[in-house]
């Protein structure tokens, strides 16, 4: 192919104009005669809707964000002055000024992950175990356990903001029990994050349940039958059959849950919008939306991207390795 092209190219360089047009037409014709090349044209045509969208709304903005993150920007979001990696250094508290609030919000994000992900997986596995019971009408209960999938974070946030609202008195007992100074769990620094975590757990149970249940149902039932013949009890069957065979599913939930919890925005916007300490994604929103610091916020969003990329790669790695079956 390359030889062909170069031979045509050298011949066209010296040929008269008409002959040149003829040779290039021949070249096109020859290229079109190859089925693989013809397929390329059709392929590009068929892929063009998605390619155009990916270009304008995924790849261009992604590289634009990297570009903006290295500039001071004006109010219209245009770069004004190149500052290299200064914003990254500032966010990671490496610029020597001693301001650590951005780094603290990253830590808050990971604290939030710890408060949400392990409990939601444990609850989901418990619910899934319960939902494998062979009783009539179990399907109704499965739908109830799944229902939080259909309830948006915004709806959940609105409902829980009223649960935590002191005037509904739904959480007064807990505030009294803990002896908190403010009547709202969301207004006390020590309970605000756990309160948002509880709402997020409630919201995430449906998804985690359905995945855990599907994982359990994929375990061959003859394993349980032979275990029962060998005299294994319910707990032993769970510990030595269900858990090990479920481990790929659990790991999937762990990684997906961590990614999701790190991206949490809606619940923070609704439940603790003015909290001094918040998660990194919400801190990014504040820098972007309220302060119009597009450069700084872009640097923060690229840091989120890197953290999530590492987790995504870990996810693919683990899923490919097929977690130990013992």
């Amino acid at each position, binding site marked *: 192919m390359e030889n062909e092209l170069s031979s045509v190219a050298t011949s066209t360089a010296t040929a008269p104009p008409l002959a040149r047009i003829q040779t290039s037409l021949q070249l096109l014709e020859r290229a079109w005669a190859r089925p693989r090349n013809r397929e390329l044209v059709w392929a590009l045509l068929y892929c063009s809707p998605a390619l155009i969208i990916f270009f304008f709304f995924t790849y261009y903005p992604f590289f634009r964000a990297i570009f903006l993150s290295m500039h001071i920007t004006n109010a219209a979001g245009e770069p004004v002055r190149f500052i290299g990696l200064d914003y990254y250094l500032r966010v990671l508290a490496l610029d020597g000024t001693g301001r650590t609030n951005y780094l603290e919000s990253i830590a808050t994000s990971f604290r939030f992950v710890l408060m949400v992900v392990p409990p939601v997986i444990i609850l989901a596995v418990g619910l899934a175990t319960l939902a494998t019971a062979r009783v009539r009408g179990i399907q109704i209960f499965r739908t109830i356990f799944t229902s939080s999938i259909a309830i948006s974070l915004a709806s959940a946030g609105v409902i829980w903001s009223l649960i935590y609202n002191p005037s509904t008195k739904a959480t007064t007992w807990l505030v009294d029990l803990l002896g908190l100074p403010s009547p709202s769990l969301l207004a006390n620094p020590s309970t605000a994050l756990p309160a948002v975590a509880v709402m997020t757990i409630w919201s995430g149970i449906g998804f985690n349940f359905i995945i855990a249940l599907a994982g359990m149902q994929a375990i061959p039932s003859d394993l349980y039958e032979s275990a029962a013949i060998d005299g294994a009890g319910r707990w032993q069957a769970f510990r030595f059959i269900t858990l090990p065979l479920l481990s790929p599913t659990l790991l999937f939930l762990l990684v997906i849950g961590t990614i999701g919890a790190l991206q949490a925005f*809606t619940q923070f916007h609704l439940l603790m919008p003015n909290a001094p300490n918040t998660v990194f994604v919400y801190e990014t929103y504040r820098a972007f939306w309220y302060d119009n610091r597009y450069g700084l916020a872009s640097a923060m969003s690229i840091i989120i991207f890197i953290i999530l990329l590492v987790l995504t790669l870990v996810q693919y790695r683990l899923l490919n390795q097929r977690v130990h079956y013992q």
Partner: protein
Amino acid sequence: MKVSGSLLRGFISYQTGVYILLIVVSVILLSPLLFSLSLALQGPTVAPSIIPRDLTNLDWRVFIRVFEEQPVIIRWIVNSFVAAFGVTLGVLVSSSLFAYVLAYFDFPGKTLLFFIALGSLMVPFEATLIPNYLLVTQWGWTNSYQGLIVPFIASGFGIFLMRQYFLTLPRELYDAAMVDGCSRFRYLWLVLLPLSRPALATLAVYTFLGTWNQFYWPLLVTSATEWRTTQVGITIFRNFEGGAIFNTQMAATLIVMVPTLLLLVLGQRQLVSGLTAGALKG
């Protein structure tokens, strides 16, 4: 006789125990929804109780009154439906076409297209948010349906879901159709897509639900009250009322849940297969 009797009794008590557990757990899980229903039915009081004090005097008309007091809710619901349908249709079309190419075509540079689709899955929404917002603002797409729809009508997830499904269908069918002079598009439209109805349904339910429940993007690209979607609407509702009128807000919140709850009940199988698509493939 005696043995089977005690076995039966054991079985019944096991069943009863399971039912009690199932019901208790269900009530706990549903309690936030029951709480919101309770607040909705108590009338415009500033100090509602968790469970209505007078169960014979419940204000069911609140679900109608909320539309009279806040007629803009109808517009929010329309906006959400248009956006969710638009995105779903766009994702179905663009994903099917792209997946068709990945599964059946053979041409130089196919790997590059594969990686463009794969790469789109690696870039999270947060990383593109700010330039996307600036771009959409610059194009004058704020407070418009194109602003809510167009950025989402291509989906890497959709492409790979459809590609996986296409690959399970026999390749010989495609080759035979091509030999018989069937055009590529005819094959996609008349053979492949009808055969792929389960995958299309899964993708449609999943995309519709995701778009209906979107919050962050609609919050940014809509500023006029009539351009809000339901999800953003119910939260600014709260700010309007200053938290004083719980009943209408809870009624509105419950109303906007209906479409997705219906989708969950009617399209549960599709939804579950969509959600588990990534989970169980080791």
